[in-house]
Structures are given as C-alpha cells and as structure tokens.
C-alpha cells in the first residue's frame, strides 16, 4: 500500500508454468513496444485490482522486459518493482546484475542502482548494479599487462579445443609480442567450462608469449551477449553483439593494451560468422571514443579439404567417429573425448 491507498500485489511467475499470466504480461509489454524474451526464467509481476500494471523479467543475472503501465509511471511503483526484482534475483543467488535499457530510460534505472557500462547510440544501454565492479575487473586485468607494441586478444568458446583454434593462436602468437586468450565462461556448452579451460590450457602450453584468462561476465557472457547462446535460432541481435564488442573495446582492451583482435573465419556457424562482421564495425570504425582495435581474420585451417571447427567435431562425436575426430583435434583433446567425455554424457 502506498500513501494514496493503491494496493499493488507483487508476485513471481515462471513463464512456462503460467501461460495465462504470461499472456497478460505480453499485453503490457506490447503496450510498451517490447516483446517477450524467451530466455526469461522468471518474472516479477505487479497487479492492481487484477490487472497487470508492471513487470520485470530475469534471465540469470540480467533484468529484461521491464514495463510499467503508462498511467502509473511515477517514481513509486517503478522503485517498488526494482526492489522486488533485485530481491528476487538475490533469492536466486544473483547479486551482480545487468540490465538493458533504451538510452532514454537510463535515469529510471539509475534509481534502481544501475549504472551505464556501454551504449549503442540511440539503441540500447547495458547497465550494471555497481559503480566499481567493472573498474575492479579492469584493475585485475591491468596486473597482467605485458610490454610490446603489438598485443593480440582472442576470445574462444573452444567446445572443444581443436587444431583450428590451435592454428589461430599460433598465427596470433607469431605476429604479436603477447597474446591474451580469453575463454567464454558461460556453462552453456556441451563440455563444461572447467573441462574446456583445461583442454585450452593443455593445448597452448608450449606458447610462451601468451596469457590464458578466465572468462567473465564482461566477455561473451549470457549478460553481455545473450544471442550467442541461442545458436539453434541462428539469430543474433545486432545491438547485443555490439554491446559485447564495445565492452571489449572500451574496458578490456585498454586495460591490457590490446591492439589487435584475432578471430577465425567461421564457415559453419552463422552466429559466429555474423559476430565477426559486427566485430570489424564495432572494434575498428569510429563507433566509440575508445582507440580502435585492428581485427585480424585468420582463415580457418582445412584438413583434407574440410575446414576444422568445433561444430564439426561435435557432429562427429555424436556419431562416435573418433577416427575422424583424431585428425581435427590435438592429442590432449582427443584423450579427453575418448576417455572422459563418454562418462560425462552418460552421467548427464
């Protein structure tokens, strides 16, 4: 109840459990020019006398689909909604939160304790609920800075690490004074982050001008690049790829002094392919006040005429064609796939 005597009833709704409620939510979203995001696990929904008047969705650590009925757009209900969704996230173990907002709504979310990270002009702003988290992250990265005029950056998912990845890293390591290699941390792949990390570490052990970094929320994560984890839809929201790339350009690259970003050409994977073309725009062009980063596309290595890719390895793995896989991956990855991976699959 507020001082005017309005009773707001807040509750949480899991979309797949309550399709009827979600229809009401969709109506409110539509009135706010928003679409229901299929990734949302849970909504905070506010009803006033039965009618849905406000909602906010939660996709892991990212708040999306925030809407308040037009006639109630004052401070009070919005702040209540913000408090409810932040509490719900905390209950679900999520404390470091991100939020996407159209640029003109930023001030509203400032009231929720969210601060802008990067902005795609006139389209979207990524905000987080901390003024210091990104700075602390960059401070930690700065400790890993290495001298040199040409510093390369690579981001891999490596699901699993193949000879294709190895070739890309070798090319970069030859051309650069130092290489910073990041692994996507999100556990959305068939092989776990810990296993993927171990395979990459083993696969690049002999390259001595390279630092292998843990992934983070700021580098191809569910928060900064949700489209990346929706591969079967083959859809990448352009502005969201831009968000991830701008974070790299404005925070990560300056912290480490990265001058070049290395990436493999991607013949099979539409998402990655489109990501690469976005990369040329958002890293090289004057799209951001941060210094440009040169994008170097390394053609994918082929073996017997077939380009080596993790997608192909997974396809072969599904058919248990280890003979074919052996040609595409380093020995360390091969050993893992033969010995450990079957148990992982059976155990899952």
């Amino acid at each position, binding site marked *: 109840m507020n001082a005017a005597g309005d009773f707001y009833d807040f509750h949480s709704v899991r979309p797949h459990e309550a399709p009827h409620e979600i229809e009401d939510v969709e109506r409110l979203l539509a009135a706010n020019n928003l679409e229901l995001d299929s990734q949302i696990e849970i909504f905070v929904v506010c009803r006033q006398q039965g009618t849905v008047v406000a909602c906010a969705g939660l996709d892991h650590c990212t708040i999306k689909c925030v809407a308040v009925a037009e006639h109630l757009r004052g401070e009070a209900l919005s*702040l209540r909604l913000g*408090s409810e969704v932040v*509490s719900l996230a*905390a209950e679900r173990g999520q404390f470091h939160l991100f939020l996407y907002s159209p640029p003109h709504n930023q001030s509203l979310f400032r009231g929720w*304790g969210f601060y802008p990270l990067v902005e795609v002009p006139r389209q979207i702003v990524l905000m987080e609920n*901390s003024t210091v988290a990104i700075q602390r992250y960059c401070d930690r990265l700065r400790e890993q800075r290495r001298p040199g005029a040409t510093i390369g950056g690579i981001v891999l998912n490596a699901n699993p690490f193949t000879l294709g990845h190895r070739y890309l890293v070798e090319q970069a390591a030859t051309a650069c004074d130092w290489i910073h290699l990041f692994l996507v941390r999100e556990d959305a792949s068939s092989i776990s982050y810990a296993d993927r990390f171990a395979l990459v570490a083993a696969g690049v052990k002999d390259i001595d001008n390279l630092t292998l970094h843990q992934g983070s929320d700021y580098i191809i994560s569910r928060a900064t690049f949700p489209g990346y984890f929706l591969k079967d839809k083959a859809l990448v929201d352009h502005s969201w790829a831009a968000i991830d790339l701008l974070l790299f350009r404005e925070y990560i690259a300056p912290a480490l002094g990265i001058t070049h970003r290395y990436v493999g050409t991607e013949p099979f994977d539409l998402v990655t392919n489109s990501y690469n073309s976005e990369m040329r725009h958002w890293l090289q062009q004057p799209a951001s006040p941060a210094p440009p980063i040169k994008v170097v596309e390394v053609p994918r290595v082929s073996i017997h005429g077939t380009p080596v890719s993790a997608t192909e390895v997974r396809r072969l793995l599904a058919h248990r064609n280890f003979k074919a896989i052996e040609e595409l991956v380093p020995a360390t990855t091969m050993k893992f796939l033969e010995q450990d991976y079957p148990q992982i699959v059976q155990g899952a």
Partner: protein
Amino acid sequence: MKIVKEAIAGTLESSDLLVKVAPSDTREIVIKSEVFKQFGKQIARVVEETLDQLSVKAGSVVIEDKGALDCVIRARVQAATLRGSGSEDLDWRRLS
C-alpha cells in the same frame, strides 16, 4: 562478525536504502546517494559505526541510498551483514 556470502537488505524506495555485502579481504565501503552532497559524510559515518559495532573487519559494502534516516541506514546495514554472515544468533547489545 565475518561476511561469508553475498547478501542484500533494504529496498530502492524513497527513504530507504539497498545494502549489498560481499566477502572481501579488506573493508571497502561504496556509497551512492541522492543526497550525497549534503549527507555523504554523515551516511559514511553511520555505516562505519554500524560495521564497527558488529566487528566487521573485512567485506565489501555497497550502498544505494534514497534519503534514509540514520536509524534506517543502521537497520539495513545490520540486516545485510547478518544475512551475509549466515549467523542466526543476534547479540542485541551490538545492534543499538
């Protein structure tokens, strides 16, 4: 009292504050307030005192203040700290 896990307390509503605590090796306090210019120092003092009373030597404490009274600040900092310490037993003498 030791902060062993992340926790929040409070709300973002007017006259309240949201307090977020997390484990950390040192004691770090970050305060954001709509009334920081006039009351920033006062808020910081209340937060420090409250943490001292609870013997919180380390931990990250992030505050988003919406013009809360000192007594509200104390209560929310205490609630977040107790939640973050995972302790159920209250020593009321440390709270007043």
